[in-house]
């Protein structure tokens, strides 16, 4: 959701576009767009040709799925078993919960009201089986409630696609003249079984029909809430220093994590001050860990960044991000795992110096030397092998390159003598030029090319200097010279 973007009004047709085989296609359409006969799956270019005022936004399926997951958890206000259903639905098992809201019809009305309060339009249906409820919500009347024993009658008029069949099977059934669920149910079971014997259970019309009518079980697999890993220490009197209490907190937390087979990646230490304020500090680890000593050392480094005010009387240590971590078997020789040692070192360095100071190298394809290498925070990255440059590159690179004054044969001769940092150098040997052109796709217009020379001066030092631009390239005055690095 982008808050600073102007939202089109209800009367403006809006479609979401996704990439298709021949350009963007309509992924979803608003009510105003559907009223103008914009079909899902149509090409956006065609729709825009017919309706020039069509508002097109890119679709975000991952964001939709995450939103539905959150909504499914929120829907546990009505019943304990909820799950996301496909890309556009939520299924709730309200068995034994409807009477709490005054009956099934009242429950559905409550749901519709609360979704509307969030600005969401919901199509709701309730049925004794999951398949029937899915079919009725998508293809039946709004607020449809199907009583027990009337399932077959309720879904009979719906199209066969309501059984969540894939498009290929629907087309096949359509060719066979079976257009409604009722027509499908009227076909003898043995014939259907024989005809669709090769299909998997989730595509087989007979299996799906049996699930919808309750002949086959169709249980709901609701994701469990992730347990919060948090430990607290309540103090009788406010204190100023958290250090004496950390060891016990870390030990308790690690016991919890060990029981659950998990390790911490992100920890938050919070102190609740007596003036009602609370202060917290986060500590990240390079790989999942549940060693109390290691976590304790990380936390000790953060204590000086927590302002205790006039003291605090409650301390909590919470794991914000966990990862599964199986118990490891230490070697019988007592040797420590070198990889674990390095990741523990990464944690300590990062906790003290900050994530942007402890970095691995990452690479990208470029001919401009300073763009090849960039540094990425070591937490959450893995070191990659460096590229093999076609030509020799310096061992050290000055960033930014330092301007030098050079005597050279005008207009494009090699450097003969240069002054850098107020010292004069005679060039005895040189190699070059190696011409590196600006990258027009990301450089500003007017960027000048570079001619690099590897030069050796009298005392043996080998430098990399370049001339920026040519004399008559129309991108500025006389070329300038820069010293960019030092060779081995």
């Amino acid at each position, binding site marked *: 959701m982008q808050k600073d973007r102007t939202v089109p009004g209800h009367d403006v047709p809006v479609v979401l576009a996704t990439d298709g085989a021949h350009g963007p296609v309509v992924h979803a359409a608003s009510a105003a767009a559907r009223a103008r006969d914009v079909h899902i799956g149509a090409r956006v270019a065609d729709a825009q040709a017919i309706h020039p005022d069509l508002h097109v936004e890119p679709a975000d399926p991952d964001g939709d799925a995450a939103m539905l997951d959150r909504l499914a958890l929120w829907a546990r206000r009505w019943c304990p078993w909820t799950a996301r259903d496909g890309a556009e639905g939520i299924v709730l098992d309200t068995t034994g919960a409807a009477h709490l809201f005054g009956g099934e019809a009242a429950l559905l009305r409550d749901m519709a009201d609360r979704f509307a309060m969030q600005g969401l339009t919901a199509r709701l249906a309730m049925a004794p089986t999951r398949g029937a409820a899915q079919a009725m919500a998508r293809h039946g009347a709004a607020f449809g409630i199907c009583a027990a024993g009337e399932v077959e009658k309720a879904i009979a008029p719906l199209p066969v696609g309501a059984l969540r069949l894939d498009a290929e099977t629907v087309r096949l059934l359509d060719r066979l003249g079976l257009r409604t669920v009722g027509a499908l149910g009227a076909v003898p079971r043995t014939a259907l079984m024989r005809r669709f014997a090769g299909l998997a259970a989730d595509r087989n019309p007979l299996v799906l029909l049996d699930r919808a009518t309750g002949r086959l079980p169709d249980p709901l697999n609701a994701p469990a809430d992730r347990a919060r890993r948090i430990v607290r220490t309540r103090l009788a009197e406010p204190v100023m220093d958290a250090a004496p209490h950390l060891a016990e907190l870390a030990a308790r937390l690690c016991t919890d994590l060990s029981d659950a087979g998990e390790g911490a990646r992100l920890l938050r230490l919070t102190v609740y001050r007596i003036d009602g304020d609370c202060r917290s500090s986060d500590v990240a680890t390079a790989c999942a860990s549940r060693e109390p000593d290691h976590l304790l050392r990380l936390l000790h480094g953060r204590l000086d960044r927590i302002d205790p005010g006039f003291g605090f009387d409650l301390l909590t240590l919470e794991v914000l991000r966990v990862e599964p971590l199986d118990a490891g078997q230490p070697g019988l020789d007592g040797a420590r795992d070198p990889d674990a040692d390095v990741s523990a070192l990464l944690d300590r360095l990062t906790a003290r110096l900050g994530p942007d100071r402890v970095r691995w190298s990452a690479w990208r394809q470029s001919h401009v030397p300073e763009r090849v290498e960039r540094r990425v925070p070591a937490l959450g990255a893995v070191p990659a092998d460096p590229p093999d440059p076609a030509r020799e590159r310096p061992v050290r*690179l000055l960033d930014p390159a330092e301007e030098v004054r050079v005597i050279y044969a005008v207009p494009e001769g090699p450097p003969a003598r240069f002054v850098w940092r107020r010292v004069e150098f005679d060039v005895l040997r040189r190699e070059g030029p190696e011409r590196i052109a600006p990258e027009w796709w990301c450089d500003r217009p007017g960027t000048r090319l570079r001619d690099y020379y590897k030069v050796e001066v009298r005392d043996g030092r080998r430098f990399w200097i370049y001339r920026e631009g040519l004399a008559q390239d129309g991108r500025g005055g006389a070329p300038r010279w820069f010293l960019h690095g030092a060779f081995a």
Partner: protein
Amino acid sequence: MEVRLSVLAVPDKFFVHGEPVARRASRVAPHGIFLGTKREHNGRMTRDSPYDRVIRLSDRRCGSAGRSGSSACLPGGEVLQEALPVHAADASATALILASLSGARRPVLWVADRMSRRENGLLYTPGLRRLRPFGSILHVEVNHPRDVLWAMEEGAACGGLSAVVGEIHGAPSVLSFTATKRLALRAEASGVPVWLIRSADPAGLSAARARWRVSARPSDAHPHDPGAPGGPVWEADLFRARARPPGRWKVHHDPSASEPADRLRMVSRSADGSLEGDRAERSDGTRT
């Protein structure tokens, strides 16, 4: 006092881990010697090496003239060493250290303070291809030399690294004898080689076990272009060492050698720059 020897160069009756070298011939190059773990041998303590390495004997010992004592003077081995670049913005110390790490596979911790990065430039990994192979480099870029020393101490205590290299520019007050002593003790306890690059430093007190002055020398001839610089040549001046005699060497780097340890070729020099003749007699590493 424990005598720490760089190399035990007795090729005809050399034992590794108590067995004759011949049994491990596949791991020992011709005229090669093997650096094993620390053990008593012939009543002397051989120097341990974190990685099994074969180091060539000097060519002179093998019959050819011109070089001497290359195996006894290789940088590396000692726990805390210092490299002092003679000139500013000279990459030779960086390259010499990385070349001596060649062959190690574990990550290298590289810590630099702000002034070093500004004066000497950033370490540019694509340019290290000829010095490889060594482990990936973990860059720690801090502002103050105090943080450099702290990060180096943390790294020196971590057995999972192949080396720790720190760069400090100038002679800040935090880089005292005590600080280097702490580093040396940490490194001795864990066995991780630690290098300290002190640029623009007047070589004050230090507890480093070996101190090198490194500068660039005019390079070798280019194989194809007489007007172009060729393979790098450095001058390494070991002006203080605890367990070996000091000396000066002209160091050539040859990336085409098959064994990583063979790539550094060190030619002994006397103070006036001429080749030195009698230093080879001490190349077996005994203390004279």
